[in-house]
């Protein structure tokens, strides 16, 4: 059986990737996002953020409430380009 555990399914970020980020010295989710790419795919962290926050808390000895989520980016859900192009041009 593979030992590979996927924490972010959009970007294939594994538990090992997150462990390596923590070993490297990162404990802030903004940094770990940029180091591993987690949370940058179609779900934008909606599936993986909590699981990775829990892993980071465990790896760094911080409590989960100390781990701040990364900045959420618009749009709220993936949205078609034609939707935004349907508005009158400013």
């Amino acid at each position, binding site marked *: 059986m593979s030992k590979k555990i996927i924490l972010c399914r959009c970007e294939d970020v594994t538990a090992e990737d997150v462990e*390596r980020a923590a*070993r*490297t*010295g*990162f*404990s*802030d989710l*903004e*940094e770990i996002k*940029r*180091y591993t*790419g987690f949370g*940058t*795919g*179609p779900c*934008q962290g909606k599936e993986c953020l909590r699981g990775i926050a829990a892993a980071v808390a465990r790896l760094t000895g911080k409590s989960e409430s100390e781990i701040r989520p990364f900045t959420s*980016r*618009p*749009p709220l859900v*993936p*949205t*078609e*380009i*034609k*939707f*935004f*192009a349907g*508005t009158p*041009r*400013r």
Partner: protein
Amino acid sequence: MARRRDTLPPTATAPLRAHAEVAIIGGGIVGLAIAYNLARLGCSDVVVLEGRHLAWGASGRNGGGVRQQWSTELNIRLMQESLEICRGFAQEIGTNIWMRQGGYLFLARTADELGKMDKAIALQNSCDVPTRRLDIGEANELVPELALTAFAGACYNPTDAIVFPWPFLWGYAQAAAKRGVEIHTFTPVTAIDGTSDGFALHTPKGVVRAARVVNAAGSWSPQVARLVGLTLPNWPARHEILSTEPLKPFLKPMVSVLDSGLYISQSLRGELVGGITVHEPADREVRLGSRLAFVEEMAHGLMEIMPRLGDLKIVRQWAGPYDMTPDGNPIVGEATDVPGFFLCCGFVGHGFMMAPVVARYYASHLTGGPTHPLFDKWRLGRFVDTATEREDMNIG
């Protein structure tokens, strides 16, 4: 199997050293690349001070374009070298930067734009950059998905490229740290005193004394310069960018529309990444919020040039600051009014692509090695001298 060991020290909690030969303010691509190149030349008594986390500013927010299509010879030649550094980055540093050399295609709408384009192409060709003019039919052969009825012509250089900015930054950071550079994140410089042998930099983690200081703080560089009483002419301008869901690779070059500043490329991850210029007041505030006006403007621009993208979904938009200067060129070298205080800022949205080469020359300049004409052309003093050479091809 040996476990890979990455070597960024856990500097958020590590104590700050008391003294360094060079203190670099700013943990973006410019600061980290200078730190790495200094260490490569044997000067590893270097500390990098970053107020937030690495990649916080423009270095973590840009589109990763690396092009040689510029309108001044200095920029063309520098970017030729920078591209070569990018091509060798994986071998030199050991980090995959997801580079894809698909070229850049610029679209011109008017005869006036075509005239400027032809002048730039001639200059680029004289530097051995293989840019060529394309008519609309040829541009459509290159990218069949483009709708070009409103355009007059195009130019294309097949050797321009895109990279993924984040690993680029980690590569420099780790390579610098491995050679002894101390990188301190979450360590803003709050005050700088002049001392008999340099500077004393105050941070929440303590004071570090440095013989020389490099201000590589990008859009925050005017604030840093004020700590030594220096007024800089650069100012921040928010530029926004978005990313779509991934598609099968189809878009070979970065495509850019000259008049609107629209650019769009497909990364090796399959996403389309692009932006467009939206007016921003020059009031010296760094703004990083996202606007509906941007995504609407971008959607209109994309539907004009590639209407079949209408059903593609945008997954994320974000903003980054361009570090603007009056003549569109950077500010580098020692500030004559504050000896020992060096500047490397004002890159007008192109610091990421220029940092690899500029940092190499910067480290040589700082360590008494061969210098480069850029230290004369891009010195701070030019803004109070005479007319300067203007760069016209600032995009996005």
